[in-house]
C-alpha cells in the first residue's frame, strides 16, 4: 500500500533528523560527567594501601590522563563501533548490562502504562459524562492524591498493606522469587517468556511480582491521563458531530464510544507518549523500593560511583527511546486521525 510506504519514508526522515539531537545529548552528558566532582580512579583505587602511583595507573588505563577533546573523540569512535564501554562496578560491557536490564524496566513501564490507561480512560470518560458531579470530584481527588504522594511513599504503603499486613502480595524483591525457575530468555519480558515456555505457574508468579510496582507507578501517572481524557471528552461531547450522532438516533454507547471517545483519544495519545518517556526515566525510585533490576537503578548506582560509561550509556539509551516513542506516537496519531500525516 502506498500510504504505508509513505508513512515509512516519513518515519525514516524523522529518525535521520533526530540524529543531531542524539549527538548533542552524547556530548552534553560526556562533558557533564567530567565536570561533576568525583574521580573514578580514586573511587576504584580506594583502599588503605593504594598509593598515588596506583591511582595514576588506573587513570592511564581508563584514558583519563588524555585531554578532554581527545577523550571525547575516542569515546565517539567507540560509540560508532557499538562499544559503550565497560562498567567498573559490574565489570561487564555496558551494552550487555543494559541489554540485560532494559527488558525489566520496559516490562514494568508497559505494565504500569496499561494499568494507568485502563483506569484513567474510563475514569476520565465518566468524569466528563457526569461533569461537576460527585463522581467527577471523586475522580479528581483520587488523581490528585496519586500525583501528590511520591512513588516511594505509595510503594512502601502498598508493600506495608499487601505484603506485611495482609500477606497477599509476594516478597517485594526483584522480578521473580528465587524458588521459581526462570524461563528461557526470548524477549526478556518475563510475562511473555513464560507464556512462550507454556509455564502458567511461572507466569502467575511473575504477574504477582510485577503488580505492586506497576500499580505504584500507574497511580503516579494516572492524573495527567485522566484529566486529559476528561477535557478531551468534554470538548468532543459538546461538539457538533456528537449532536449530529444524537440527531440520527444512535444509541448512547455508540455516540460516546464511536463518536466522542474516538475523537477524544487523539490528545490522550500525545500525553501517553510523554508519560511513557517520563516513566521510563523516572521509575528509579520504584525500582529501588521494589529491588527491581532495571536500567534506572543501574544508572543511579553508576552515577554515585562516578562510573562514567554506564551513565553515558543510560542517557543515550533514554534519548533514543524518547525519539522512538515520539515517532511511534506520531505514526499512531497519523493512523488515528485521517487529517494529519506524519511530517
Amino acid at each position, binding site marked *: 500500500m502506498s500510504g504505508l510506504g509513505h508513512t515509512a519514508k516519513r518515519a525514516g526522515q524523522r529518525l535521520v533528523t533526530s540524529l543531531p539531537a542524539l549527538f548533542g545529548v552524547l556530548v552534553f552528558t560526556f562533558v557533564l560527567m567530567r565536570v561533576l566532582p568525583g574521580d573514578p580512579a580514586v573511587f576504584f583505587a580506594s583502599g588503605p594501601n593504594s598509593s598515588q602511583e596506583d591511582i595514576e595507573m588506573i587513570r592511564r588505563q581508563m584514558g583519563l590522563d588524555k585531554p578532554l577533546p581527545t577523550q571525547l573523540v575516542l569515546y565517539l569512535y567507540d560509540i560508532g563501533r557499538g562499544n559503550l564501554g565497560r562498567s567498573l562496578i559490574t565489570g561487564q560491557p555496558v551494552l550487555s548490562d543494559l541489554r540485560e536490564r532494559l527488558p525489566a524496566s520496559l516490562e514494568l513501564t508497559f505494565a504500569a502504562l496499561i494499568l494507568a490507561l485502563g483506569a484513567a480512560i474510563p475514569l476520565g470518560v465518566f468524569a466528563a459524562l457526569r461533569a461537576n458531579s460527585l463522581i467527577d470530584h471523586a475522580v479528581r481527588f483520587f488523581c490528585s492524591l496519586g500525583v501528590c504522594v511520591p512513588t516511594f511513599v505509595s510503594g512502601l504503603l502498598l508493600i506495608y498493606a499487601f505484603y506485611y499486613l495482609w500477606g497477599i502480595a509476594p516478597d517485594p524483591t526483584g522480578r521473580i522469587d528465587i524458588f521459581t525457575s526462570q524461563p528461557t530468555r526470548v524477549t526478556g519480558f518475563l510475562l511473555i517468556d513464560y507464556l512462550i515456555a507454556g509455564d502458567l505457574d511461572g507466569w502467575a508468579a511473575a504477574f504477582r511480582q510485577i503488580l505492586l510496582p506497576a500499580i505504584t507507578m500507574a497511580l503516579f501517572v494516572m492524573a495527567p491521563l485522566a484529566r486529559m481524557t476528561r477535557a478531551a471528552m468534554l470538548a468532543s461531547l459538546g461538539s457538533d*458531530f456528537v*449532536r*449530529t450522532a*444524537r*440527531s440520527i*438516533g444512535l*444509541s448512547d454507547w455508540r455516540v460516546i464510544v464511536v463518536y466522542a471517545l474516538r*475523537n477524544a483519544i487523539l490528545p490522550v495519545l500525545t500525553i501517553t507518549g510523554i508519560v511513557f518517556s517520563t516513566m521510563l526515566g523516572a521509575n528509579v525510585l520504584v525500582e529501588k523500593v521494589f529491588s527491581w533490576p532495571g536500567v534506572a537503578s543501574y544508572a543511579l548506582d553508576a552515577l554515585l560511583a562516578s562510573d562514567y560509561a554506564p551513565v553515558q550509556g543510560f542517557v543515550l539509551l533514554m534519548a533514543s527511546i524518547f525519539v522512538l516513542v515520539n515517532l511511534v506516537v506520531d505514526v499512531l496519531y497519523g493512523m488515528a486521525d485521517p*487529517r494529519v500525516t506524519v511530517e
Partner: protein
Amino acid sequence: MTAPDAPLLAVEDLHVTFTTRRGLVEAVRGVNLSVAPGRTLGIVGESGSGKTVTAYAITRLLDSSGRITKGRIQFQGMDLVQAPTRTMRALHGAAISMIFQNPRAALNPVRTVGLQIADALRAHRTMTAAQARKRAIELLDEVRIREPEKRIDAYPHELSGGMCQRVVIAMAIACEPALLIADEPTTGLDVTTQKTVMDLVARITAERNMSVLLITHDLGLAAKYCQDIVVMEQGHVVERAPPLRLFSDPQHAYTRRLVAASPTATSRVEDLVPDASLAVPLPPLRPKTKPAPGTAPLLEVQNLVKRYGETAAVDGVSLTIAAGESVGLVGESGSGKSTISRMICRLIDPTGGDILFDGEAIGSIAAREFHRSPLRREIQIVFQDPHESLNPRFSAFDSIAHPLRRLGGLAGDALKARVEDCAKKVGLPLDLLDRFPHQLSGGQKARVGIARAISVGPRLLVLDEPTAALDVSIQAVTLQLLERLRREENLAFLFVSHDLNVVRMMCERTIVLQNGRIVEEGQSRALFDAPATDYTRELVAAIPMREVA
C-alpha cells in the same frame, strides 16, 4: 391516526429556560407554531430570538443546561415534552431529523462519510454493513454527489462545505423521516452553493412529502423556500404570515424593522433603518467627487499575483480606486478576494505585480516592514469578525488608542481627546470605552473595529466582510455608519463581501472575481442589472430575492 389536514407538528405555549452563571434565562417564552404535512415553515429572527432553541427543544437535543419548563409539542399524536428518552431516540432520524449550520463540523472528522450514513441507517433498520453501504451509495446519488462509489470512502475534510452539507442531508433523509428541521443550513456557504443545497432540500422534501422547519436569519431565503413564516423576537413569536404578505404588509413593528433592514436589489443605505429615532447617523449629502485631472488614482494595482506553492490564489489582478470612491470586490470563497485585500493592506507579500498608493510603489515593501512606512496610516482595515479581531485583554479605549500610540505618537490628553473623538464619530457611547470586548455587543464591537481603523485618519479603508458576523438590523446601522464616514471624511472603500445586495448598495463600482482572476467589472447598478458574463449571471441569480410588492 390524525385527520388529513391536522398539523404534523404543533408547538403550544413552549417555554425553555437555561441555567447560566447569571441565573435562569428564559430563552423561549410561550411559542406557538404548527407545521402541516408536506409544508415548509420558516422561523426567522436575529440572534437571541430563540429560534434555534425552539428547534432543539422540539428534537429534545437541548444542552444539558436548557430545560423545557412549560408547554406541549404535539408530533404524530404524542407529546414530545413528556416522551421518554427511548422514544425520542426511536424518533430521531426515523421521524424527525435535522441538518445543521457548519456542515463540516457536523460530521465526525475521523469517520468516512459512508460509515456515518450507514450509522444513520443502521440506527433504525436491521441491515448488514454491506447492505448499508449499498444504500449509502444510493443516498449519495440522491443528494447529487457525483461518483458516489468513490466519495463514500472520503473523510469530511476531503469534501467541500457544500458536499458535506449534502452528506448531512443524506444522513437526515436516510430513514425517511416525516419532518426535517434545518438550522441555518446554508450559513457560511457560498451563494451558488446555498442555492444548490436549498434547491436540493426543496426537491427531496417535496418528492417525499416531508414537512420542513427552516430556521434562518436570511429573509430572502425564507421567502423563497417557505410557504409560511413566523418571526421571532426575544423568545416570542411576533408575527406569522405567508411570505408575500409578510414583506408587503408587515404588521408588527419588529417585522417592519427587520424587513427594512434586509437589503434587497433596490434598497438604498438611507432606507435600511426606517425608524428615525434609531437611525442616529443622518448622512449628509455626498460631496461631489471631482474627476482627477491627470493625477494618479489613490490606489493602483497592477497585475497582482500571489502563489501558494503551485496554485495561484491571485492571478494577475489589476484595479484602481480613486480618492473617495467605493469599490466592491465579490466572488465565492477561494476566488482570492481576501488575499487581494490583505496584499493591498500590506499584511501579506505579493508574489508578483505592483501596488501603487498615491503613485508610490508599496508592493515591494515587505509586509513586516510596512508598519514603519508613513503610508501605514493611510491604509487601514476593518476585519470580518468583530468578536475575534479585538484583543480580549484590551479595553475598547486601548483598541482604538493602540494605532494612535504606535503610528500617531499621541499620548496623554491628546490621545484621550482623539479616541473620544473617534468613538463619537462611530456612535460609540463614551462610557463603553472602559469595557473589554466580552462586555460589548456585536454591534458595539463592530464600532470599535471601525473606530480603530479610522483613528489614524486613513484615506483608504479596506473592509473585509465587515458585517458578515452581524445581525441584519445591526448590519443596517453599521452600513449607514460606514456610508456616513465615507461621505464625511472622503474615504475610499475597498469593500469585500459575499453579499451582493450589500455591495450593490454600498459600492459605486464592483469587481467580480473567480479563481483569482477578474471576470467582470463595472458600475454596480449596470453590472448587477445586466451581467455580461455567465459567472456573474449565476451569482446574481443565486441571491434569494423576495418579491417587492
